[in-house]
């Protein structure tokens, strides 16, 4: 499976993790190109159905990251998000969907290094888990 290149989508919050990724850039820190970012105003805005859409359309892994609790721009969006993820992970696990394919984290605007490590670690883990073909095959009827 060494030549398998995972496709990973990162849902991040604009004020903290997106800015953290910018900092990784300004520091010219290199990390795996397998992850592409989609910007949200806050982690509170990330809808669990978007994660399902990402998997359904070919993503092998997902990163969801935002402001650390208490270090928030909007004062409570990340708290609500955390509570939603706890329940969502419980449901995915109960349905037998491998929760290791979704990596949750807090990355602040000052943690450029942490963003690079997070991406590399997630890319490596998803590479070991291999393509999420089981889920992609579910597409059933429809354009193929």
């Amino acid at each position, binding site marked *: 499976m060494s030549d398998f290149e995972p496709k990973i989508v990162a849902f991040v919050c604009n004020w903290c993790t997106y800015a953290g990724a910018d900092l990784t850039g300004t520091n010219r820190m290199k990390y795996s190109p397998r992850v592409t970012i989609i910007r949200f105003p806050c982690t509170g805005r990330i809808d669990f159905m978007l994660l399902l859409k990402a998997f359904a359309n070919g993503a092998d892994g997902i990163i969801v990251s935002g402001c650390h609790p208490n270090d928030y721009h909007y004062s409570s969006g990340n708290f609500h998000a955390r509570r939603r993820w706890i329940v969502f992970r419980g449901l995915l696990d109960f349905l*037998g969907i491998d929760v290791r394919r979704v990596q949750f*984290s807090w990355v602040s605007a000052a943690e450029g290094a942490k963003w690079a490590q997070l991406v590399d670690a997630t890319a490596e883990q998803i590479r070991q888990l291999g393509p999420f073909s089981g889920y992609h095959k579910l597409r059933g009827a429809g354009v193929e």
Partner: protein
Amino acid sequence: METLRNKARELLASKTVQMVIGYGRGSGEAAPARAVFIRAAAEAESLIFDASCQQNLAVYLMKPEVRQLGKAALVATPSALRTILQLAAENQVKDHDLLALAVDAQGEVTPLATLQTIEAHVAALDCNLSAGEKTELQKYVALDPEQRRQFWQEEFARCLKCYACRGACPLCYCSRCTVECNQPQWIPVPAHDLGNLEWNVMRAMHLAGRCVNCGDCSRACPVGIPLYLLNQRLLSEVLANFNFRSGMAAKADNAMSTFKPDDPEDFIR
């Protein structure tokens, strides 16, 4: 059952309510009991109550056609009472919209006129999952992920996307459900594996912290998918992580729209 009938006759005669929603004789042994809407004192005779009367009648409180008939007295099983409290917590039911006729296993009828009295009545009940439900749920939790994936794959394969589960559930009262939204198309319309999975995940998530485990969704499912397992799993997750139990108070914040600074986050890097 006699006390129930007298109570209904008395309420209708004195016009305190315009209608009594209760259980009547069903057609054949497949459906021994069905919901009846008594609007005249004379018809109170057809009210029955026995072990087969399980349906959560609170679902009719949210149907516009029933609401416009005026104030109703509802023959309420324990889960129906908890549903009324949860609906009140979500601003759907006001204090004097209805009169609940709480009825327990022995057929004892206690009228509860206000949400306050319903709350007190519910507080005395044991709202945990029954021992049987717990062991069954545990049986699935104990499986390894691949076995669970296989199990649900087979179960969801039978789903016809008929949405009977949505119709039976008293807490599914949205005028336009997200399933009907096509800009963007959140849930695939066809009943293929992906569509069925995404529908069931959405339904379970939308009931997290709200479902009172009345079991009507599973009873309504024509192909017998054990939907109650999903709700019970999330019910216990919400209780374990946030120490929150739905349908216990008329004025309660929803588990998913509130938070505690120290919610568990061991899975977050």
